[in-house]
């Protein structure tokens, strides 16, 4: 049942021209940024060669590209998640799911998975481009994989957050701006922190992404992401259950 809903979500995301436009635009921006980074690296390569323990190509090129990818996903994902529940409510197709023999958990997990499939594709497009580093240099595959894992986990967190806002609202735009606002807030918590050990900073998914961005796969960070995602998904399921069972 979850897979049925996931497959339908994935297909209808792809039926929308806006999805293709976003994919094309993102890929173009990655490529631009990627070549910019390569160019910068080549300019300073001669000086770097004189240093002991100089930063390698992977950390100076791939890590910033993934950092940018994370930032773009933060802005894009709410636009996808607003369609998942809030827009169905507005288009009055939500009744179909409400009167079908499926539980709220089926609906939420199905929609989450469907969106994740699309996000995996976006990340894979970026990863394929970064893989071209392997052609020209001994790239640090461990660092590359840590970055990709980090971006995926971060994308899943934003997707879960967006889904929750989508469940709370009837207006897609409010759902999108709400989720975007909170993601920005969490990002700013990370940016504005003075030291790396602050409590507020550790609330932000971006702070935990920073470690993976530097190639540090820390079990504490992984647990944080799993908790963040599952809490928001559970909240969404709970909210829908409440709405279905209790008349307001």
């Amino acid at each position: 049942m979850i897979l049925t809903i996931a497959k339908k979500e994935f297909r209808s995301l792809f039926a929308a021209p806006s999805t293709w436009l976003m994919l094309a635009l993102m890929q173009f921006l990655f490529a631009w940024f990627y070549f910019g980074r390569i160019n910068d690296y080549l300019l300073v390569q001669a000086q770097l060669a004189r240093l002991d323990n100089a930063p390698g190509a992977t950390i100076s090129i791939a890590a910033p590209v993934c950092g940018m990818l994370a930032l773009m996903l933060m802005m894009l994902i709410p636009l996808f998640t607003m369609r998942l529940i809030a827009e169905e409510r507005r288009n009055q197709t939500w009744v179909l799911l409400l009167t079908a023999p499926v539980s709220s958990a089926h609906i939420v997990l199905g929609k989450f998975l469907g969106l994740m499939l699309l996000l995996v594709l976006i990340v894979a497009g970026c990863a394929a481009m970064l893989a071209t580093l392997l052609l020209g240099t001994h790239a640090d595959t461990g660092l590359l994989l840590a970055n990709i894992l980090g971006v995926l986990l971060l994308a899943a967190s934003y997707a879960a957050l967006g889904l929750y806002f989508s469940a709370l609202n009837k207006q897609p735009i409010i759902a999108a701006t709400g989720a975007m606002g909170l993601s920005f807030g969490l990002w700013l918590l990370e940016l504005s922190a003075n030291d790396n050990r602050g409590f507020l900073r550790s609330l932000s998914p971006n702070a935990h992404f920073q470690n993976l961005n530097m190639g540090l796969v820390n079990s504490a960070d992984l647990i944080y992401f799993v908790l963040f995602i599952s809490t928001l998904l559970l909240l969404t399921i709970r909210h829908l259950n409440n709405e279905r069972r209790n008349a307001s």
Partner: protein
Amino acid sequence: MTAPLTLSACNLMRRRDNRLVVDGVSLELRRGQVLGLLGHNGAGKSTTLQMLTGALPPHSGQVEVCEYDIQKEPQKAKACIGFLPEHPPLYRDMRVDDFLLFAARLHRIPSAKLADALALSKQRCGLQDSGRKIIGSLSKGYQQRVGIAQAIIHNPAVVVLDEPTVGLDPAQIRDIRTLIRELGDSSSVILSTHLLNEAESLCDRVIILQRGRLIYSGSSTEMMANGNMEEAFLHITESEAASA
């Protein structure tokens, strides 16, 4: 011998802004019956149907479908219902076939039987040639047919139709009425309508709602005993309004 009970609702209530939209409606439906729900605009017909199908939780009262309580065992109860709401729940960017298959899978039709179910419901609703079309590009009448096809694709025991013939041309109305009569042989049908001649020609039993309350319930032959249905309807609703 009476046919088994497929749907029963007991004392349903639903408020909106402290006003009772549906006030203590109870009804029963047996297999093989077609029940018509009549009433003026805003009488609470759609709200009642939404509560019967589990789309809207009632403030009080309970609904049982095929002996499953819709609040306590929602999945089992909902598997027995097909619902066409007032606004057909159609994904406008999907193809008719894909949409109907999605609806069929949601209602847990095993994949081996999907093709048969799809072909049958399309044939019943006259959609044989529209399978590849995008729903958003269909006319209102065809969209309505897709909505009905979606409601009957899993061959439910109870079919709930909210104004099924709205927006259809006379030939389509005739086809849909034939279909409803056909459905009434094997399952129970409950439909809401403004058209009294529709109720007259289709329904075995009729109930009338006014301001959320059930003011009449009886077989359609009883109702037409003294004249035609339109006169009877006006007589019942007006005398009720006068006494209120």
